[in-house]
């Protein structure tokens, strides 16, 4: 569990820094499953006496973890690929564009050899996040930040991905 906790915190720090304090609780609840995991996605619009009001906020970190679990195969292939340095360069170049459309064009224009694992993983994580209700722009940026973080320590990231794939 320490690998999972450590990486959840790292991912939160990179992608959703405002959720960093919640990372240990989210990791614990997400990988415990059952009621605790359900609570992460629960939205009960009920007012309580003495409350400030029903909140509009949503936690993003559980969605990221969910997207990572769903993309575990693509991620394992990606991290195990050779030429991680070229992926890192490609990611940096792609995400230097502000416009989401231009970024997509740039990713699509990358040759399949050796960039197919990168193209697949960006598309998979981004679509997973988008399907969970995040905007296209936000999904894209989060995918980039998460992948950059994973590439910083590919050996540790591979261990993390294997662990979460096993635990869920």
């Amino acid at each position, binding site marked *: 569990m320490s690998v999972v906790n450590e990486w959840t915190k790292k991912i939160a720090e990179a992608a959703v820094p405002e959720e960093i304090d919640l990372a240990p609780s989210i990791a614990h609840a997400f990988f415990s499953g059952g009621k605790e995991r359900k*609570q992460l996605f629960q939205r009960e619009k009920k*007012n309580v006496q003495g409350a*400030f*009001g029903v909140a*509009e*906020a949503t936690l993003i970190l559980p969605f990221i973890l969910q997207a990572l679990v769903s993309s575990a195969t693509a991620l394992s292939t990606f991290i195990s690929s050779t030429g991680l340095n070229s992926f890192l360069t490609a990611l940096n170049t792609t995400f230097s564009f502000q416009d989401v459309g231009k970024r997509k064009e740039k990713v699509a224009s990358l040759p399949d050899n050796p960039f197919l694992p990168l193209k697949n993983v960006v598309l998979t994580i981004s679509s997973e996040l988008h399907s969970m209700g995040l905007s296209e722009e936000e999904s894209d940026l989060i995918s980039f930040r998460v992948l950059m973080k994973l590439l910083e320590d590919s050996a540790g990231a591979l261990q993390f991905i294997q662990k979460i794939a096993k635990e869920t």
Partner: protein
Amino acid sequence: MRSITGDGDSSGGSVPPWLWFWVFLYLLSLPDQIRFYEPAIVDLFFHKDWLVLANVPELLPFLALFIGVLLIFFPWLRAFYLERRFQLAEPDQNSSALTEMKTFLQQHAPEIHIKTNMLRTDQLAFVYPLGYRKTGIALFGSVFKLWRSDRQTAEAILLHEVAHCRHGDALIIGAGSFFEAVVRNFIVLYLLFCFLPLSWSFASQSMDALQSGIPFAHKLQQIFTIILPGSFLQLLGLLGGLAGVFVLPIIAVWSAEFNADRFVINHQKSSMDLLHALNKISLPLSIFSWIIFRLTHPPIKMRKWAAEPRLGKFLLVLLLFPVAYFAKLLALIIRALSEYLLEYLLICSDFAEIFVQLANNIKTYFAIIAPIWCAMAGFFLLWPFMSMYWEQFFGGSRGTQNFEIYAVYLLSALIVGLPALSWLYMA
């Protein structure tokens, strides 16, 4: 005019604790209320005719309020229920945001106890009683997130909760805990306990009548001229009764909310962060959920309106609770009119008599509320002197006495006191 500063927060005036005032009046009026509802309760349990089930929707608002007030005396039960429902636990001490929030809270409410559920974001924060003199605050994931992304707004939310604690609201705000359950199910309960037994009784009477040769057309006519309009009037009367019972505690809760918002503005010297915080509140999805939300909080637009630092608006907020007595009167008029019209429909009573009775009842109502309004006028005059000690008693640290806006309290006392004296004189 002078300003006495204590060791707590700066103050630009606060709303008197109308919720406490209302609870006190409710407890005083309880013997009369029990006497009033006693026949209906006795009928329900000892009368053999199952048509007495029609008493249930009428009794429910009274019972909901009675149980809610009764539970004030057992604050541990509310704590147990809320901690279970929201899965509140002792906080994770490793969180730096928690440490910062704890320090912030202790500056304003030194004795407040924090519990958290970091996984839920559908709530921000709320206060609840842990005992008669001990208040808990529940902090949710959304407020931790906000603390990192927009500190000032998060502080506004915490200050709002601190205000509830310092004002002593946490202990008694649960009096309205059962309002939502009653309002949410009221129509279903009406259909089940009133409309269904009445329809069943009418159907069985009709069967007997048809067997004895009374034409079907006559019975059909009765459905459209008596049963359906009568049922509508009965429902209208019950809704009037429901509003009549709930309106005062609801407006007293609203006053507590406005006061908590005002505390934020006074402390932060600006309404900007409070307005940001109000924008974080989720909007109701339907008219019905809008009504349900109003049982615990005033409309967001109204809170934003009241957040503007103008004395005229503060005066209106101060007078909100006294004005609620007119809303109660309106609800009671609806109830009485529907009952009179029902009587007129069934036994063709004198129509003019209805208005004479109504006028007499309104006169009696004003005679009854006149001493209450006099007490409110007195409370307005005393509150600026009392508020500092009141906050110290509940919040642990002393607030501020601000006499710069004493004129607003004086004006409120006159607005409430003068009509009350005239009603007393007329009575």
